């Protein structure tokens, strides 16, 4: 069992990545009840935005300067795309039956993916993303990639900022009000359109942070990276209780841990020797989702809400 601390650490780091992306799903869903299917692609364009910034910088720029600039560029691109999508694709469909914006989201997801695939230079294959050079850290028997430092710092920081924003600021409270009852919020003088745009923008910014973390971690970005990660992140959002920002992070961590532990340990469970390892980890993540939905349909931290759909 000497792998256990390492597998837990792996799971938590991966889970934090899922959680950051899941924030976007959960915020948008909490306010407009829309599964923003294209959010995985918002994440992906953030990665390419950051890459573009890196390529534009003169070679040999210190990563201490480069990473913040890449982060800014990623956030900028992601946010612009997300807000543009909200304005031109989703907003006209507000009030249409539930299926219409969802199909639009699927369409948008395909379009963004194809735009990057076809028109970003050399994006038909994976593009190389910079890594933080140097040997890994050893800490109490746990090895941590140097590049993961970014995520380990960024994820809690982002959560704290978001928590403060939602609870303490005027806009944050308006956001909460809108998610509880959009009509009443509107009557109270809240500009709900602005709040919706804000939800999209915050989600996109978080996705961009996650994209930079992903790029640093795997050393590459590619046009298809949003599909699988988006799916996982949405699962995380549902798992944690959709609409709840802490739930999204918790769901992400739970999902990451499940995958890490499934890869490491399922095959040691008697009778399960054929169903372990990385090949089955996604299946186990899915099983976790089904079990949670059966036992606690509102998700881990979700509140039991009256039917809105």
């Amino acid at each position, binding site marked *: 069992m000497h792998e256990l601390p*390492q597998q837990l650490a792996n799971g938590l780091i991966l889970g934090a990545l899922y959680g950051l992306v899941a924030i976007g799903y959960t915020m948008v869903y909490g306010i407009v009840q829309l599964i923003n299917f294209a959010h995985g692609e918002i994440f992906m364009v953030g990665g390419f935005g950051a890459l573009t910034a890196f390529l534009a910088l003169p070679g040999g720029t210190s990563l201490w300067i480069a990473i913040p600039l890449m982060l800014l560029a990623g956030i900028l691109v992601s946010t612009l795309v997300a807000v543009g999508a909200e304005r031109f694709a989703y907003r006209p469909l507000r009030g249409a039956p539930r299926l219409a914006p969802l199909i639009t989201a699927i369409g948008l997801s395909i379009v963004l993916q194809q735009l990057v695939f076809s028109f970003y230079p050399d994006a038909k294959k994976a593009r190389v993303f910079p890594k933080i050079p140097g040997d890994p850290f050893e800490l109490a028997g746990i090895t941590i990639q140097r590049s993961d430092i970014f995520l380990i710092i960024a994820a809690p920081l982002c959560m704290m900022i978001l928590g403060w924003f939602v609870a303490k600021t005027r806009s944050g409270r308006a956001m909460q009000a809108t998610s509880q009852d959009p009509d009443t919020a509107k009557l109270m003088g809240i500009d709900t359109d602005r709040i919706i745009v804000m939800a999209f923008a915050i989600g996109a910014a978080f996705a961009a942070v996650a994209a930079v973390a992903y790029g640093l971690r*795997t050393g590459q970005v590619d046009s298809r990276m949003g599909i699988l990660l988006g799916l996982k992140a949405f699962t995380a959002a549902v798992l944690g209780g959709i609409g709840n920002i802490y739930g999204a992070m918790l769901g992400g961590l739970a999902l990451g841990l499940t995958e890490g532990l499934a890869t490491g340990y399922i095959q040691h469970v008697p009778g399960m020797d054929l169903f372990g390892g990385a090949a089955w980890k996604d299946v186990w993540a899915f099983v976790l989702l089904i079990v949670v939905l059966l036992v606690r349909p509102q998700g881990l931290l979700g509140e039991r809400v009256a039917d809105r759909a």
Partner: protein
Amino acid sequence: MRNRSLIVVSIAVAGALSLSACGSRGEKKAEDGAAGSTTVTIGVDAPLTGDLSALGLGIKNSVDLAVKQANAKNEVPGVKFEIKALDDTAKPAPGQQNATNLVADKTVIGVVGPLNSSVAQSMQQIFNDANLVQISPANTGVALSQGEAWASGTKARPFKSYFRTSTTDAVQGPFAAQYLVNEAKKKKVFLIDDQKAYGAGLAATFKGEFTKLGGSIVGEEHVNPDDRDFNAIVTKVKSSGAEAIYYGGEYPAAGPLSLQLKEGGVNIPLMGGDGIQSGDFIKLNPKSQGDVATAVGLPVEQLPSAAKFIADYKAAAYKDAYETYGGYSYDSAWAIIQAVKTVAAANNGKLPADARAKVVAAVQAISFEGVTGKVSFDQYGDTTNKQLTVYAVKDGKWAVEKTGTFSG
């Protein structure tokens, strides 16, 4: 392929309007070619769009190059070659529709393709029924040519029209195992594959030979080819005490896998097949120094025909690189052209009526020096070329480590 109803209606309309239709267009087209020369088509089926399009376009361009050179050299007197490239998007159903399309086109004399084994499975029977020769430059699944029971020793060729210039998994995997045990002296290997036909097949044949030679597989893992996060696997490799990793799969996942291994403090080489022997593997993986790959054929420097192919390909100024399977594709097309030559020569320089069946037989007997070495086929339709090269990453380049011939 005009359909009957169109002809019926066109005659009716033309008749009703009392206009004299002046001859059929079909005849006119046949006169296009120079006197006495016939035009035959070499079909290509490969993924020309989508994720694998880079490989597919490399196949198409290489066949195109072969056809152009054959025409320029007047390789087969009185026969002009054309190419008809169809896109299968790496899926069986469109591949099968392409197969029926090529079969229906009476000028098609042979087909180069496909890239994917699953596509080949849906086409083999159709080409076989039509006696149309098919040479795949890329399929590695052993069962395609030797039947499902090959592993247990009972080989039976299911389709007589199916050939391939690529080597099967049964050659590359064991060759790698021999290298690891005999030259690199690695006895403990962690085996990883990507669950795709190519990768899983390679890993399975590697495992068989490696354990036979006395090595031990200290762990096995299987990754999703779309995954890019392998830290959980890295942890397992680390605690397994492996001396090397054998990876069955392609470079898009192998690059980050090897990188994350080394970032995770596991400094052991990763070995793979020709799926990772690509410049992109090194690009995606700044810590690839010491990783090893096998590839089929002699290294380009030792094979003048390969150097010529590369120079010609460059001179032809194709938009896309020839990629992994360019040389095999060129050889596949050239094998068909040579077969047509044989058939025509045996029939006073003209193609006989049953040219397709004759070409299948001629391909079986073909033998010439191609881009990838000697091109000829054994009784299963597999290439007899069993020369392999081991490459290792040195200073950001694949450097030749060893060349050899695989024997049993």
